[in-house]
């Protein structure tokens, strides 16, 4: 979850009974944590406010100081336009609730509803501190249209969508929220979401439809990057640890149905000067809860720079060589509470091996433990979830696993299991 870092404009502090202080803090958003990225357009130049009750007002700071908001304090500012539900199945009937949780002006902007090739306007009415509108699908669809379909809501520069899928039929669709775009693939077994604006396009959620469980769920109250503590991402390491994919944003290069599968493809540039590009495809099978992942690293022609060519020093073949390692990282919430919890299962030298990290910040990496059998399972027995990875064992990739602490300070062990 992201959160706002802001610059304090003013602090209004009032003593309460019991020795605490109610502080109303006005601040100008400066960046979005944890990556300290640019704030969204709608927050630029704005002053927002939060309230905290504290025992010592010095912990808030003074005008000019920075302050980090919690994810819940930040939520309505970073995701002001919310659609409920964001996904509907097997119907073109019903209601969608659109909530504008914050706006810079007292009067909300117009709400445009785009669906079925038409644009309509809806009125946002004040409800408490927010504005809401209820949209009837019957007003947008006659009922004879095919699924999937999309209802897109636009409010000034804010966009959010409700995606309509059939119950079990395999399908794919783009989804939109104030946090950005994602691509959703669904079938009778699973529904997964790919986010492509970072980490070379990774899987941010993977819902097992039978139990409506997201295997890549993460706590909402911790500031983390997109894939900080959950999800599947690939990594392309150059040398000791420079992951070129970490900052790489990808573009969708299409989605299609083919031969009983649904396939999403993405492409992106790793290093324009060096001609490095990457593609990834995620393909969901209709008949099994299985996703195939194909990642390619392409070495294309380098851009020629005549000036640099003229100044180039003599070189040897090794100077043009790059040591590249391709790996994937999958991360899940670890089982909490006492007793045996999350673990990784694989075969080592013909024997089933289980690795379970238990200590905060424990990590395991064995250069000699190579996965020649071509599979590894991450199991979370307390919540009855597991995920199996299958791959080409002939290259014998190495396994590494680690357990990191979460912010639930007083329960243990609760953390995140990463398997690489």
């Amino acid at each position, binding site marked *: 979850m992201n959160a706002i*870092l802001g610059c304090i404009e003013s602090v209004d502090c009032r003593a309460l009974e019991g020795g605490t202080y109610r502080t109303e803090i006005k601040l100008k958003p400066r960046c979005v944590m944890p990556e300290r990225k640019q704030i969204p357009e709608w927050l630029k130049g704005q002053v927002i406010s939060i309230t905290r009750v504290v025992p*010592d007002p010095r*912990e808030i700071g003074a005008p000019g100081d920075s302050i980090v*908001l919690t994810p819940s304090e930040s939520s309505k500012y970073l995701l002001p336009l919310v659609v409920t539900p964001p996904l509907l199945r097997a119907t073109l009937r019903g209601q969608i609730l659109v909530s504008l949780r914050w706006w810079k002006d007292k009067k909300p902007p117009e709400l445009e509803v785009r669906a079925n090739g038409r644009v309509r306007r809806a009125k946002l009415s004040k409800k408490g501190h927010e504005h809401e509108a209820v949209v009837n699908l019957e007003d947008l669809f006659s009922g004879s249209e095919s699924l999937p379909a999309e209802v897109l809501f636009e409010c000034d520069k804010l966009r959010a969508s409700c995606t309509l899928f059939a119950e079990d039929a395999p399908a794919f669709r783009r989804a939109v929220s104030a946090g950005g775009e994602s691509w959703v693939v669904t079938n009778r077994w699973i529904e997964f979401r790919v986010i492509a604006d970072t980490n070379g396009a990774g899987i941010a959620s993977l819902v097992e439809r039978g139990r409506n469980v997201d295997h890549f769920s993460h706590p909402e109250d911790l*500031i983390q990057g997109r894939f900080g503590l959950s999800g599947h991402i690939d990594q392309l390491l150059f040398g000791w640890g420079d992951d070129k994919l970490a900052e790489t944003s990808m573009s969708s290069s299409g989605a299609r149905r083919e031969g009983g599968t649904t396939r999403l493809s993405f492409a992106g540039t790793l290093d324009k000067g060096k001609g490095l590009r990457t593609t990834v495809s995620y393909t969901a099978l209709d008949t099994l809860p299985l996703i195939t992942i194909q990642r390619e690293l392409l070495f294309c022609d380098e851009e020629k720079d005549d000036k640099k060519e003229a100044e180039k020093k003599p070189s040897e073949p090794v100077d043009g060589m790059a040591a590249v390692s391709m790996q994937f990282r999958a991360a899940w919430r670890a089982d909490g509470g006492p007793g045996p919890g999350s673990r990784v299962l694989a075969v080592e030298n013909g024997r089933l091996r*289980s*690795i379970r990290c*238990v200590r905060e910040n*424990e990590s395991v990496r064995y250069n000699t433990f190579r996965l020649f059998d071509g599979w590894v399972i991450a199991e979370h027995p307390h919540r009855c979830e597991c995920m199996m990875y299958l791959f080409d064992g002939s290259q014998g990739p190495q396994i590494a696993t680690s357990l990191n602490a979460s912010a*639930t300070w007083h329960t243990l062990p609760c953390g995140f299991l990463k398997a690489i």
Partner: protein
Amino acid sequence: MNAFSPRTFSTDWEIMVIDRLERCADTEKLLAFAGALRSEFDLPIQVDWNTLELALGINSQFDQFVQRVRSVTDRAAQLVRELGLELYPAGSHPVEPMYNSSHIHIGTLHDEGKGIYLESRLMRYAPVFGAIAANSPFAHGFAGQYKSYRIRDNAHGCTRPQSARDPRLSQFTWGGDASPKVYSAPTLEVRITDCASSRRLLAELVVFTAAFVHWLGENTSEYRLSETEYIDCMTNRWSAAKHGMQATFLWDGTERPVVEIIDEMLDQSAASLAALGADRKDLALLQTMIEKRRCQADLVLDLGKRYRDPYCLASVHSKLVRDWDAFDNYVVSSAPLDPAPAPDRERILNEHLSVVGEGTHFYNLRNAMYYPPTLVDELIETLAGDQLVHVENTCRGMLLSRVEKS
């Protein structure tokens, strides 16, 4: 004759510096501030990993030291503020992989051999200083189970449990909890102490540590630790990291709350304190910590109950400690805490068992309480004998897996 002559003391205080995007200023930038302070004060102020290292020169009197601490930190805070930065004195950062210390230097020691015997005598007391200074309950990847993760994690190799040394048979090893360090400033250096967030606590702790070590320095004869003493030292080191001022130590065959031991040490070092221009009544903050069994980590733990996210916690903590007296006020107004029991055999076994998951390399147990190899191997045998762990010898070494009883 005392090992220390003349009697002096100082500190290297490693302080983070953060900007208004809540980033730690890196070493390259901090070189400028260190250079300016070094010139202004003629003190060997330098930088360490992403910290200003305020080395406060040679001091012989308590008042001199207090004044120096105040003037250097006031000026450092003023200088960094000119570029929108703030000092953030803490034993760890909740997000960044940083551990910081207030090393304590006790001078003047020229005889390394005597220093090594003193190191052995001091080994049982190092955890006491660690308990007083505990100030790192949240660190990169760690959350609230220890009052000093810096000690528990050996500060990424920068403060490590000592081995018992014989000056006739040993080499210098850098980074021990407390050891002579005569190759640079001729002192004995105590490294186990977490970075202080309070100027007052720093001054009191430094002069107390120096006075006590000076008192110990009266005896420069050969000293060899027994195996039991050494193991008790490691147990107490673990207790100090875990419980801070609530710890109960194994002491001369009995169990003693660390606050009682500190009280006794203060009495023992009365004359040495006087030689440094201090009196027990000058150490009022330390006295309050003894009465309340609280350390700086407790303030941070209380903050952590309200700010679950480590970025938010760092943001509020850094602002709170800016005025230097947040902990001083906190400990005065807080209720006393109860002592934690000393670990018995069962607790020690459970602590080692807690490190075992499945396929756990046996060497992980070395880090549970930093016991010597023979004792850890014996504990593994006990756990295996009690059928609490399954042992398997593989090409990667011995692997242990917990046996869950149904």
